[in-house]
């Protein structure tokens, strides 16, 4: 083999890059399982959990546009219940701890939603 030193160095760098996640996660010694979410206080969400898992951001986005642009402040849930379209007042009235509900998955997935640029977290006000 010619230029063995350089070639082997290149291969070592390549292997280090490919196996990097393994070393990183082993060194971190943190649980790699999905985070546990705090149980909601209410009994009925505005949509079923399966749908909410993937699409809650769509719902919040639609709510924001409908409330802010069209002034439609109320929403009829699947069980016919009339609810206010409000992140702080409706969502967080059942999911009382932002840091034990929203943040757990968002941190796990490195998602940084800009909800809290405007909204205040109810607990922080109290």
């Amino acid at each position, binding site marked *: 083999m*010619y230029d063995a030193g350089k070639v082997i160095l*290149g291969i070592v760098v*390549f292997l280090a890059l490919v196996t990097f*996640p393994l070393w990183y*996660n082993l060194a971190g010694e943190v649980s*790699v*399982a999905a985070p546990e979410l705090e149980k909601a206080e209410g009994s009925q969400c505005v949509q079923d959990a399966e749908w909410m*898992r993937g699409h809650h951001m*769509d719902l919040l986005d639609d709510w924001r546009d409908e409330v802010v642009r069209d002034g439609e402040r109320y929403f009829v849930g699947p069980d016919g219940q009339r609810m206010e379209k409000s992140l702080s007042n409706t969502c967080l009235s059942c999911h009382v701890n932002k840091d034990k509900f929203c943040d757990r998955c968002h941190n796990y997935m490195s998602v940084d939603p800009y909800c809290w640029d405007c909204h205040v977290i109810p607990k922080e006000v109290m």
Partner: protein
Amino acid sequence: MNLFFSLVVIAVLIALPWLLVGAAGLDYLFGVIVPYVALAVFVVGLIMRVLQWARLPVPFRTPTTCGQQKSLPWIKPSRLENPHSTLGVIGRMLLEVLFFRSLFRNTRSELRDSSRLTYFADKWLWAGGLAFHWAFLIVVARHFRFFLEPVPWCVSVMEGLDSFFQVGLPIIYLTDVIIIAALTYLFFRRIINPRLRYISLAADYFPLLLLLGIAVSGVWMRYFDKTDIVGIKELTMGLVTLSPVVPEGISALFFVHLFLVSALLIYFPFSKLVHAGGVFFSPTRNLANNNRVKRHINPWDYPVKVHTYEEYEDEFRDVMKAAEMPLEKE
């Protein structure tokens, strides 16, 4: 025909996981076994390819002179385009790998005014290629949020910059737009230009369509048909920590995405895509043009009997002198 063949292969690659995931036990096949096999083929295949290249001797420098060679001290050499030192070679390699310097020189020839052959600069291929490669690199780096826990700050910063304009929700990544635009251009470039279409093989269409399939399935999953990404991260974290699990509730679209990526990894070492490693073995790029400074000996040379000019002059001195030819030594 080449295009048709590639389209059929891509369709099969999409249909397989789409139809089979959900059938008994096949989630584990598509979620765990196929990705592991693909990664093993990719790593071993690429290393084998590299070792194969490293076994070939490159005894002579092949200078492709794109600038002034190192010469007399008062002539300014072109250190990057025609390097004579290791540092210059590193500079040329960086320009090549990061900015595709030699493709930047791309020209096109066309018959103009019916018979006049004209050459002109053609930067579109360079621009499309560069856009695709950089976007792909950033997209791959962004995916490390699925493979690392906790997610390192540099990945978050990259995501923040990539979603800089905060358009839409989930926020649209600029690289998602760029990679699809670039791949679409590179694909239609081969189809629209008749001469290019004539020389295009299945091996040219297939990687473009495969990458396009990966990008579109990923974008589709992020912006349109959303799925439970926390479950996906459980799966990917299981894969990279060698304790695989397949959680419930992951959509078939994710398995399509993962299967296409696996196909790319398997295809990579055996196709033109290995230029990723091959670029580092390009003799016209990675060797200094110092043939006139340093003697490079062919490793398989046998001793050649040489007759130097001094010996030649010694042999014919009298005859040359008689013919009044100039002599180095009297």
